[in-house]
């Protein structure tokens, strides 16, 4: 038994039949979430491009449409990046369980870690922006 293998077994918890069942079902639903998100983003883009026809023509209408399109694009880029990791998690974990491949399983859980990490970082950014906006608003009203 080499040292690397002994170190690798540090947590001493197995992926037993119950874990396998949970992980497999998690992979299925993770894939459903990711695919639904990809389709939703596509539909949102189509709605943003072809929707708002009632806004009319002219500079004001096109500015509104452009800003709405920009908002959709930013959401879409962030959402696609996040859901790619969820999709990768689902695929790799499924391959790991089906093919008894430890490497794929590890990569899958790494993708899940990155998925939640990105969401966490986005929440931190969002809270920071909210605090800054609140402070600015208090500054403006305090004048």
């Amino acid at each position, binding site marked *: *038994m080499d040292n690397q*293998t*002994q*170190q*690798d*077994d*540090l*947590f*001493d*918890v*197995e*992926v*037993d039949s*119950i*874990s*396998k069942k*949970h*992980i497999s*079902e*998690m992979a299925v*639903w*993770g894939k*459903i*979430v990711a695919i*639904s*998100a990809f*389709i*939703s983003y596509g*539909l*949102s883009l*189509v*709605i943003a491009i*072809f*929707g708002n*026809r009632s806004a009319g023509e002219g500079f004001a209408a096109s500015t509104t449409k452009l800003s709405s399109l920009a908002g959709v694009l930013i959401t879409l880029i962030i959402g696609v990046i996040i859901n790619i990791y969820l999709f990768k998690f689902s695929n790799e974990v499924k391959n*790991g*369980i089906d093919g*008894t491949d*430890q490497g794929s*399983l*590890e990569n899958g*859980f*790494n993708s*899940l*870690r990155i998925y*939640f*990490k990105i*969401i*966490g970082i986005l*929440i931190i950014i969002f*809270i920071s922006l909210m605090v800054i906006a609140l402070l600015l608003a208090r500054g403006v009203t305090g004048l």
Partner: protein
Amino acid sequence: MESNNQPSIFKDLLVTHTMGNHIHDTTKWTRFISIVFIVCLSLFLILAIVAGATIEPALASTFPGLSNIMGSVILVAAIVFFLVFGALTFFLLRFALLARRGLEMRNQTLFNEGLKSLKIYFIIYGVFSILSLLTNAFSLFSL
């Protein structure tokens, strides 16, 4: 005779050091996310109670005959949102606590319960994603 601490070719998948670290990191982020969600839900509940009293007279003046129905619709929507969001938060936090404790205490049952919670989280999220996708598709066809 082989020790239980040593992996062998007969054991299939294990929570290796690398995978355990990924899951441990994931639980840190999911705990943070669920705590933020709990704060958001509490704020939502306070806001709903405070704003409810203000919204009711406003609804009565805007929709004279329909204020009761509109009020009930808003209340049901708020309860559904609160329950779904609450369930997502509960299972995410449960995963964070149980999976982490399972790894640290080397307890297979706790670890499996943690995975089960994450699975339920993804099931709820998946159903919600499908509903959201259907809403988006409906918006597209009503353009």
